[in-house]
């Protein structure tokens, strides 16, 4: 009994932390875009899908590690192309217009996958490092899961350092607060936008390459259908402008989803994780709209 109980709790907790790390990676990408340009990037999910497909298509030609890097590069390019073709021409429009535009990017990428014949299929995902790393609380933790947590921590620390300690990070923040003044100070706005969108694309791509192996395979458009809403909720929970907040928010969302998944039978309430995410989102927005670590109002 005790063992069963421990498993009921420990399994979702470990899985939740790992998947939460993936959600956190995407959330950091969303925060990056929001922090630098006040845009809600609905194309973020498809950055992840592009990364996953890039790695999938390339893996038969080369070792998987290099295929994964190419996948991340593909996502990075997608981010850059989105910035150049969609975001830049619309830069001075209302934010709602930009939201619709990024949603249009998402549906274009989704429709493209379906056109290529991906609809309704499952694609096998490969782990960067196979095998289990260690066993804790009766749960095996794989190398892949360890990699995800390490990458999230690295990305979080790296971005916090970027915004907090580098001139370029400061320039990015200045651009979001006062574009005209920033330009007069010699900051090249287009360069900053390219940097943030490229980085956001790469972060999404990393999430897309690392996450699918946890469930063995992925479906087309999984970034938008499965990851986008938890990632946004994590970012909002963290305060939308806070990199550490998105990090923590991602972990919380992973836990919430997995606890809901494991503890609510799908006969009583199907789709419990989705319900849990909505509840968290509405609660955060109603009770503490600035999030747990948000500073800017």
């Amino acid at each position: 009994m005790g063992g069963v109980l421990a498993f009921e709790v420990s399994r979702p907790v470990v899985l939740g932390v790992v998947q939460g790390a993936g959600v956190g990676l995407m959330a950091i990408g969303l925060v990056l875009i929001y922090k630098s340009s006040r845009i809600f990037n609905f194309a973020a999910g498809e950055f992840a899908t592009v990364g996953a497909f890039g790695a999938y298509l390339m893996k038969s030609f080369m070792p998987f590690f290099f295929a994964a890097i190419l996948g991340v590069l593909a996502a990075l390019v997608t981010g850059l192309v989105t910035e150049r073709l969609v975001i830049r021409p619309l830069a001075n429009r209302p934010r709602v217009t930009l939201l619709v535009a990024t949603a249009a990017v998402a549906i274009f990428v989704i429709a493209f996958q379906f056109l290529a014949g991906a609809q309704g299929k499952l694609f096998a995902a490969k782990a960067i490092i196979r095998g289990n790393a260690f066993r804790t609380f009766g749960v095996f933790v794989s190398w892949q899961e360890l990699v995800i947590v390490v990458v999230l921590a690295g990305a979080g620390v790296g971005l916090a350092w970027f915004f907090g300690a580098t001139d370029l990070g400061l320039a990015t923040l200045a651009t979001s607060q006062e574009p005209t003044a920033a330009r007069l100070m010699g900051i090249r706005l287009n360069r900053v936008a390219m940097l943030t969108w490229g980085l956001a694309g790469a972060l999404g791509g990393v999430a897309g390459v690392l996450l699918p192996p946890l469930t063995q395979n992925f479906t087309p458009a999984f970034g938008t259908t499965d990851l986008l809403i938890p990632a946004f909720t994590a970012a909002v929970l963290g305060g939308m402008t806070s990199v550490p907040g998105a990090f923590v928010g991602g972990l919380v969302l992973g836990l919430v989803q997995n606890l809901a998944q494991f503890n609510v039978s799908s006969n009583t309430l199907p789709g419990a994780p989705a319900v849990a995410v909505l509840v968290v989102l509405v609660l955060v927005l109603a009770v503490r709209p600035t999030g747990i670590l948000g500073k800017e109002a």
Partner: protein
Amino acid sequence: MARTLERPAGGAPVPPHPAVVRLPERGFRPTAAGWAARAAAVVVPLIVGVWYVEANAQVRSDALATAAVIAIGALSLNVLVGYTGQISLGHQAFIGIGAFTSAYIISESHQPFLVGVLVALLVGAVQAVVLGLIALRVRGLYFALVTLAWGKVAEQCLFRLKSLTRGGAGAQAPRPSGFTTDRAYLLVCLVGLALILLVDWRLVATKAGRAMQALRESPQVAANYGVDVKGYTLYAFAVSGAYAGVAGALFASRRLTVQSGDFDFAGIALTYLIVTVVGGLRRRGGIVAFSLLYVLGGEYLPDLARAIGVHTIEVNAGYYIQAFSAVLAIFTLIFQPDGLGTITAPIGRWLRGERFQLAHGGGALGRGGGGDARP
């Protein structure tokens, strides 16, 4: 169509919206030949349309019924995005709830089709108002997230509750007796679309319509002019939900069975949003026209692609139009915020006896409605 704001929201700092304030030109009357040309412009497409359907009634009337359903759904989204400046990314929930409600009423409660539609309309309005209550607290982009999550909950939870939707097997939604053939059912859908268009036209022309548009420009200014912000926000949600309920009911009976998988985010919510944007926000004619083009594109773009040597598997060919419309939507946002309305609105004015003149439209998504601030 007097769309002048009774009390222009914004006053001095915000100049009157060019798309809202449009004084009719005085002293112009078309000649007899002009009226004849206008009559021909109405009658000839109608004849061509009937001929087109009759040539292959089975397939084509079903396709046109789909277009009518998409048009109603997009008009529902237009009430929120176009008139009120709220954004909904969870319209699969709106449409799906209408569809399952109607199916339940018709096949489980054994009520006539019309009762199913009416109950779907009511339930659609109620669920939208509940969402609207959240919109009162959470504005702009953050509210968009709530609608997104709500759509997902509907998709994964609500529509899979076996007691309501029969689970994966799907709920039966028979057509009204006497209208069981595709051709007859097309008439039902067209009547539904016509009624919605009529309601929408009157809605915009009334005090409530002007109040909603004032809310889009700026809720604060509207409140200062005595517009009941809460009341009219909820009113807009109720109207949008009611349209979506009707769209859902017609959707259900067109398919005869509805399953939870029919209402996915990419297929319904994003598609309808894009149809609304490309058709043109606040441009009924444009929205209906693009709904038609969307369905026709789904039908003929694969042939066109084959003709120019692009090949894909037959079952996936329907996605050409989705990809193409997404690109069109981005172009619309960048270059032509009024979408197809840029063309349809002058044609509409011309048909009503004015000079043909391409008007310069206003911004698409409302200037005040940036919704960037924290809720």
